[in-house]
């Protein structure tokens, strides 16, 4: 059964890789997600340099943020004694809500029609 050593090595690798990777989802209670997840880099140099990154959300609102650190991010952080931190961040923009849901086509049922321009 030569699949057993293979199994053991893959298992060890999988445990290593997955144990050192974390994902955090930050999501609003009732998300109105628009578009897909977009990537934003979040590399930092021990707090010496601060970078403000503007997220491209035309609606000015974010529905969800995913923070991912994988095995390699963690390794680089450890090798540089924490001076260089790399995290992968993805965000999902939020759409805006309908201000109102109009009734179009006149007001036959006594409701306020909003069919004008």
């Amino acid at each position, binding site marked *: 059964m030569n699949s057993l050593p293979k199994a053991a090595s893959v298992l060890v690798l999988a445990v290593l890789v997955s144990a050192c990777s974390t994902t955090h989802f930050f999501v609003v209670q009732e*998300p*109105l997600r628009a578009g897909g997840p977009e990537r934003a880099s979040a590399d930092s140099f021990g707090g010496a340099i601060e970078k403000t990154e503007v997220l491209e959300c035309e609606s000015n609102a974010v529905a969800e943020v995913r923070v991912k650190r994988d095995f390699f991010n963690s390794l680089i952080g450890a090798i540089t004694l924490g001076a260089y931190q790399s995290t992968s961040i993805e965000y999902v923009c939020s759409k805006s809500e*309908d201000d109102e*849901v*109009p009734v179009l*086509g006149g007001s036959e*049922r006594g409701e306020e029609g909003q069919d004008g321009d």
Partner: protein
Amino acid sequence: MATDPKLHRRSSNRWQNWHETYAVDAGRRYELHPGSGGLSPAKFRKSAELVLDLIEEAKAEGKVLRAVGGTWSFSQVSGQQDAWILDTTYANRKARLSAGAMDAGFAGDADGLLLVQCGVSIFEINRYLEKERGRSLATSGASNGQTFVGAMSTGTHGSAIDHGGIQSQVVAIQLLSAGGQNLWIERPSKPVASAAFVQDFGAELRRDDDLFDAGLVSLGLLGVVHSVVIETRPIFLLSASQFEHPYDDRLKQAMRTLDPAGIDIPPEVQVPAGNPRPYFFQVVVNPHKQDTPTRVKLMYEEPFPATHQIDYRLQGKYGAGFDLPGLVGKFLDAVDPLTPLLTSKLFDMQLKLFANEKGTWGETFDFTTPRSQTAGASLAVPADRCIEALDLAIEAHKQFGPAPIVFACRFVQKSPGHLAFTRFEPSCVIDMDGLNSMNTHLVIERVRSALDAAGIEYAQHWGKFHDLTGGRLAASYGSDLDRFRAVRSALLSTPADRQTFSLAAQETVIGL
């Protein structure tokens, strides 16, 4: 201050679908924004003009234009390499139609109609209908992240046994296509909007069954669907239970006939006395252990009690990691002896037993936590051949597996639309859901080959993994495929028009 609709061009051209099964470098990426303030005919005209201009610009530059919704399709039917991708999700305006908007021949209840723009998601519809209108969708898929238009464009279905796919709720389609065409399409037998109303939207009224049936499930191959009008129903509650049942003759008969009256329903499940026919019926089979009982899910319709508090809010929790399915899938490719054990564990974890859980349609089919690298394929077969097909699937898995996959059978009535894959009267849909691994794809293909060899008619879900060869497509859709092609040729009369709304993955197989 109210703002006008606009197109926003994104700075990055990198695009990937929601479940990360593929990514492309688009030629350009645009978003359609509805502007602030409620929907008005003037805003709708403006929004349509923006899209029509974009269509002409793409055509002039020899580019393909792909409209995308929630990007929940696993298969490569939405984004495309080098294409201009139009993200419709922001365009989420809704409107009700008054009796004054109706055609004289309209026979239904105008109060039950809802106009939804292309970006409105299933969740937004559920929340608005259930919380503000005391109404509900009659059917949808199993969760709520798709746009209604994106979902109908691939023929998304649930397992509401007396309903068709999601598109069966559509009564009018506003389609924007090449050459400035802004069409409002209805069935001649079911007129909805008055000519004046349609004109106010800057559209041309077309009552044409062929065009309507092509527009219902169109994969973006006809143009951009800018809005649809859907029929809704009064709000109701579902009482859901999931229990174990052997894969025996009684269950098999229920699956062939969509009538679970004869199966062993546990005594704790409350079956409504006056209406024992369930609204929803689903059977999930674990192909890894022949003796494992199936999981049967039944949902019964109940009146909506005034005391019920509708709550869709997500709760914070720990769960399997985002990348875990992909990782485990690859792991199991390498070490397949562990597949039965792990899949059976997942089967038990994911399909918990419960009884009489109450919720509205929107509460029951709610948010799904996104996972990368999950895989799904679905085949619709005539319900009376459901068991033959499922047994072939189980056998294919036995021979060519193991794969981290389970088989779920869902049931729907024949659905409208030339390219609706739930095309049988009624249909049994065999969902093959699992982790995205080589073995999963191998087994899925072997199941298709087994059905081909047994001469069982089937059609594949456009939005899930499929492998449509020209032969398979013609066998599945027959003359309906010719009808779809004819509508497309008439609508998109020049090669440049057709190129603008083409889909590379489908090009060779559909011959469009």
